[in-house]
């Protein structure tokens, strides 16, 4: 119970402090800003309610980009990891490059992706999928490699083929690793979608945030951020639930 109550109490306290600081104008004075630029939680809540259909419309666009991009990154990441596990040559060639390539700032090359894939959903999916690919692929490669070599030997004397060792021993061993990689990816995915929209889009929460920011609609910017956070938390929750249902032996 304390595990739920304590963070909840802290959250309420933080919102309360923010509410007081914003509604008395103390926060705006501190920042040297006009009061309307510093919305209070109550104003954000009312923006959420008043713009609910606009937010929902744009949230749907962004949600699709996040989920589809995540699934593409997951599928490619898992496939890559399995291939690297089965082929020593490919692993030696690709793995160091794969780890090093995480240093490439994907968000920075997002504009190029718009040039390549146009203004539709394509570049957003590319950014999200690329962001999700690396943590999932690296975690899965590490997970597959964490298999006890004795277990592999034992399976060989039980007439297992290389593929059977992979599916019966290595894949289940890697599953918890896959889930922790997927959780990191789930946190990256909304950032990728918003950035993809910032580079060029005519709808989506990222697009809305950019527009509202330009028009100094700060309360709705925060409202859109709340919706984005809810999407990210939802994805995270689904993953946690799936892990608990699938990885029952831990």
């Amino acid at each position, binding site marked *: 119970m304390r595990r739920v109550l304590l963070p909840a109490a802290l959250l309420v306290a933080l919102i309360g402090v923010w509410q007081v600081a914003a509604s008395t104008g103390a926060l705006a004075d501190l920042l040297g800003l006009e009061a309307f630029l510093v919305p209070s939680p109550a104003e954000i809540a009312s923006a959420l309610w008043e713009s609910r259909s606009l937010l929902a419309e744009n949230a749907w666009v962004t949600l699709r980009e996040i989920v589809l991009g995540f699934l593409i990154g997951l599928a490619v990441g898992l496939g890559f990891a399995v291939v690297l596990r089965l082929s020593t040559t490919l692993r030696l060639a690709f793995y160091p490059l794969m780890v090093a390539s995480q240093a490439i700032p994907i968000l920075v090359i997002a504009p190029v992706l718009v040039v390549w894939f146009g203004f539709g959903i394509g570049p957003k999916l590319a950014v999200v999928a690329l962001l999700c690919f690396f943590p999932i692929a690296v975690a899965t490669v590490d997970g597959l490699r964490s298999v006890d070599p004795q277990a592999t030997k034992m399976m060989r004397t*039980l*007439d297992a083929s290389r593929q059977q060792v992979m599916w019966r021993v290595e894949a289940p061993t890697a599953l918890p690793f896959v889930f922790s990689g997927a959780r990191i990816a789930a946190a990256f995915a909304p950032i990728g979608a918003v950035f993809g929209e910032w580079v060029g889009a005519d709808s989506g929460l990222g697009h809305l945030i950019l527009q509202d920011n330009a028009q100094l609609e700060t309360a709705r910017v925060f409202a859109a951020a709340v919706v984005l956070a809810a999407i990210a938390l939802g994805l995270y929750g689904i993953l946690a639930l799936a892990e608990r249902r699938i990885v029952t032996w831990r």
Partner: protein
Amino acid sequence: MSAETGQFAADPSLPAGQGPPGVGVAVRGLGHRFGELEAIARLDLEVPAQGALGLVGPSGCGKSTLLELIAGLQQPSAGEIALGDSRDPAGRLARCAFMPQRDLLLPWLTAIDNAALALRNRGVRRAAAREQAGHLFKRFGLGGFERTRPAELSGGMRQRVAFLRTLVAGKPVLALDEPFAALDAITRAEMQAWLAAALGADPRTVVLVTHDVEEALYLSDRVAVLSARPARVVEQLSAPNPRASDRDAAVTDPAFVAVREQALAALHGGAQ
């Protein structure tokens, strides 16, 4: 326990045509090195079909390597290993099942699915594999634990399931690598009696590595005492009363105690 298990003549879980009922093991002039390190030197061993050979030796003397070589998991640097007429690693692998030190049960599978792994690997459908392995569970006193996950089993029960997994593979030769090393003394004694009864009901050619001289002499017909690295045979001893149904009486028998002292003396001599 042997009375309860001994009445089963044919084993329904064994696939037909898995080689002759008995396959002997012959090791001749075996040498093995890891780079500069010489692990085994000029080793000769002979195990008759359905016989049991115990291997004892100081820690790190290459006993486990020897088992992996016999099982076909590695190819020796020198010399020859024959399981029946199979000399190449693939042929040895096909005739030998290996039980590692730790049970290595897969935690995501139930006990019966762990035991049935060899059948599943050969393409037997899940239901048929469970049924075949299920016969062994009942025969060897594990009935009722079929659907239990390894995490819920005691150390002794896990080792039993691991041994059944080795038996279900239906190979004529079993390579057992310190199968009970992780168990407490009482459970280990129980498991030795259980294994003796199981081997009585379902005879195989056994190569048993252990650091426990008493365990080797109780479970094997002959015990080879190995020297420190590079491993060679210091002394071979015959066990006075292998796999006797009353273990406690067998291991306290004066003849047994005398051979045990002899083996320990050889072990100390070889360790230096």
